[in-house]
């Protein structure tokens, strides 16, 4: 049975559908999902990847059998050979002018100088400096000595070590929360979701700590480094000029930073990355 639409036609329709999904559907669905005020366009690099993959998928299907190849090439051959009567013939002429014209315009558009910002690659998690690598948050699981000092200081003589440890963590957490709300909330938000009252003022939005791709993927020492040194402490490949993160070592003590980190994970309802035990 002969198809009503040729394989060539199907290929063109498929590419149009994929293009529509990339350019219209994904931006609008994304807008709807994250309640954004406008459609969230697919970045050019990604759009090119998706379109290329669609073309590869089509090329695979078309060249998989001689029959498919023939069916795909026949309309192209007929078109190039010409001889179509009336309107079809004229349409062919128009297409033969338009297609090279379009290719020429795209080539011109790509190479003609114009004002545009360069596309940059940003290293997401730059190498942590050696001095931070082995640091451990002293407040996450306080050592027995620290707990004993706490018992003594707070006059909790009869309390068991484990109970006192939990109490100490709770107390530190409360302090950390206060520090977080005072120093971090304006940008990162009271729920640590990156939606603080000042968030919209930045070109690179503050990190959303609830996102599993942010603080849950790194160890606490990494966060400590980022908080302490801020955007200015980022290496060049991480485009330090893009980050508005202050250098908190000028404002906060190390102890305060650790407390904030403890509270930050808790507020975001995520866990820090822990190196697994080696097998």
């Amino acid at each position, binding site marked *: 049975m002969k198809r009503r639409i040729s394989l060539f036609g199907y290929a063109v329709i498929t590419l149009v559908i994929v293009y529509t999904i990339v350019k219209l559907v994904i931006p609008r669905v*994304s807008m709807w999902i994250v309640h954004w005020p406008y459609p969230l366009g697919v970045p050019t690099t990604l759009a090119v990847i998706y379109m290329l993959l669609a073309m590869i*998928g089509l090329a695979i299907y078309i060249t998989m059998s001689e029959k498919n190849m023939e069916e795909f090439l026949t309309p192209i051959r007929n078109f190039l050979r010409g001889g179509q009567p009336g309107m079809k013939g004229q349409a062919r002429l128009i297409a033969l002018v338009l297609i090279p014209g379009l290719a020429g315009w795209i080539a011109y558009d790509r190479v003609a100088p114009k004002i545009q910002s360069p596309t940059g690659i940003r290293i*997401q998690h730059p*190498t942590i400096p050696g001095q931070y690598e082995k640091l451990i948050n002293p407040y996450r699981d306080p050592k027995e000595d620290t707990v004993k000092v706490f018992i003594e200081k707070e006059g909790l003589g009869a309390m068991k070590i484990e109970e006192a440890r939990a109490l100490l963590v709770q107390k530190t957490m409360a302090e950390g929360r206060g520090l977080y709300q005072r120093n971090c909330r304006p940008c990162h938000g009271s729920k640590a979701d990156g939606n603080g009252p000042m968030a919209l003022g930045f070109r690179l939005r503050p990190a959303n700590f609830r996102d*599993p791709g942010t603080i849950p993927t790194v160890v606490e020492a990494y966060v400590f480094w980022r908080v302490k040194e801020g955007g200015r402490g980022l290496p060049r490949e991480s485009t330090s000029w*893009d980050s508005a993160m202050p250098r908190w070592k000028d404002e906060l003590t190390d102890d305060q930073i650790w407390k904030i980190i403890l509270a930050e994970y808790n507020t975001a309802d995520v866990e820090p990355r822990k190196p697994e035990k080696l097998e």
Partner: protein
Amino acid sequence: MRYRKGAITLLALIGVALALPAMAAPEEAYRTFLGYDSRIAIWIIAELHLMFGAFVLGVPIFAVTIEIIGWKTKDPRYDKLAYEFTQLLSGAFGFTATLGGLLAFSLFGLYPKFMDYLSGVFHDVMYIYALLFFVESITLYLYYYLWHKMAKQKGLHILLGILLNVCGTVIMMVANSWASFMMSPVGIAKDTNQFIGSAWQAMNNPLWHPLNLHRFLGNVAFGGFVCGAYAAIRYLGAKTQEERAHYDWMGYIGNFCAVCGLIPLPFAGYYLGREVYSNSAVMGNNMMGGAFSWTFIIQAILIGGLFIGSNYYLWIGMHRIPGSERYTKYIKFIDIIIILCFAVWLTPHNLPLSAEEQISVGGQYHPTLKYLGLMSGKNAVVNFIILSTFLSFLLYRRANLGEGIPFSKQGAKSRWILLGIAAGLILILGSYSNYLFHLNPAALDLPADKAKYFKLPAILLLVQITAMLVAVAMTFMNRGKIGQMLYLGITIIDITFVLGVYGYIVMAVANPFLRNVAVTQWMTMMSSLVLVTTLDVFLFKGAPQVGEMTWGKMPSRSQYTLIFLCVFIVMLIGLMGFIRSGLRENWHIYGVMQDTSPGSWTPDNALMAKVVSACGLIFLSAVSFLFWLTSAAEKKAHKPDEGPAAHPKAAPPAHEKTARSRS
């Protein structure tokens, strides 16, 4: 004879190299390579040595397997094929040894202080290594040169082949222990950085076995694709239909062996990656999110190319199978699934953006597409890709088979085998499910309330067991095909859609457990591969063939695909070699001995691309030369006036047993 001489010379060279520590002047830490950058020289030599090594270690694994199949089925075609694979091997072995000698010389010459330290740790093992190399070379020459003489003592000959594989694997493991020690050293005194452990302790470092597994599988895939390219070149230059048929078949077997190695490879890579992270969180961060993150995007493209190319080759091959038209209509769906999966696989978490794009999406991440860039999404789709590739093989296998004997009439043996395999799988899945149910969160450094996150994967394993029982019961009721599809379908839903999404939750709230989620996905997938294949064997037992296979009727583009696959795997092994070694950054031995040479900086992606491409080009040129030598030697052995060759005759274009052999 020439190989033997070459090997002896090279062994002598290695011996000299091993004695070099005594001759080296440890006061001088670094030297240049003939006035050039010593780091790049070492990089190229080591990479080429590894590429040849991968070929030499990978090919014997399937050469012996094919020989065993030939011995058991008494089909001379397999024997001829195994011999041809071994022919390629003997030439490459000389190259591997030469490069190994050169690498040893260069390392001791250019990095004397570092090698002084390393040989101080491993000197005993180095002698064993040299001895093993000696045993391997003798075994290889005996295996190759006595092939025809031992035709009547096949069992003994196969034993030689197995010994060859054992030697090769142990050699690889020894060399891996050195490389992995440099990444995850053990037995080091904290204050002095001096090695105070034993050689065995140093060998048995945390990354040793993950690296062994990854390289072993990688070598099989590498060897298969390189052999596939050899067959493709011979096919394209074939003068007779008989030759074309033989090389078409050889190309198919090469691709099949490669895919067998490729299928478990992503999981082995994941295992290695997790262990790298466990050993050093900094190394782990650098690898996937830091300086090496973009190389992983390139890796994803290359792996994508391998899976797509292998499937494409298989799909073209369907058209040489009479009866395949019953199944070719499904291929477009597999094509769509694989392309969609690769769209996810290739989506980076962190995107290259212009300033305008950054503003429009509000940052460095796209608010929705960023999730596709996380490990959980990647794990989900890679399992789906593997299952789709498996489905392609399944369709290929049954393409020209009619209806098999109903299972109920296949006798008690079939029933017991099926029940035995199902019981084994149930035991494995059940044990792991039980382990997850009783897993103590403290073992993963997680608080007690996180135990609730362990339940879903455990329950899904029980679902999988139930589905398996249903599939087996349906087979007993002669409804095995439905049972097969049911099991495959449930596997896909479980590992891609349920655990794939669940992984995001685990990532955020119980990250260390993500490894167990990945293990659950992998176990479920492997159980599916085993059970569905077993069912397929029984479902098509005694099935008549629809028509004869027409080997040697493949279009040229299929052969170019095999060559493309070879180029891709060569580039991939080069890239991964760079990543593994580069992760140490400015350390010879991570955290113990710093690299203070002028070339201690981490190469950028541009330099990496140039050096890896150069290595790939040199390797492919050298391999082409070897292939040419092999075919020239073969032509000499087949002079027309001398009649047929001494070894088994060329393969017939079609064979009654062909369909069986495809399984």
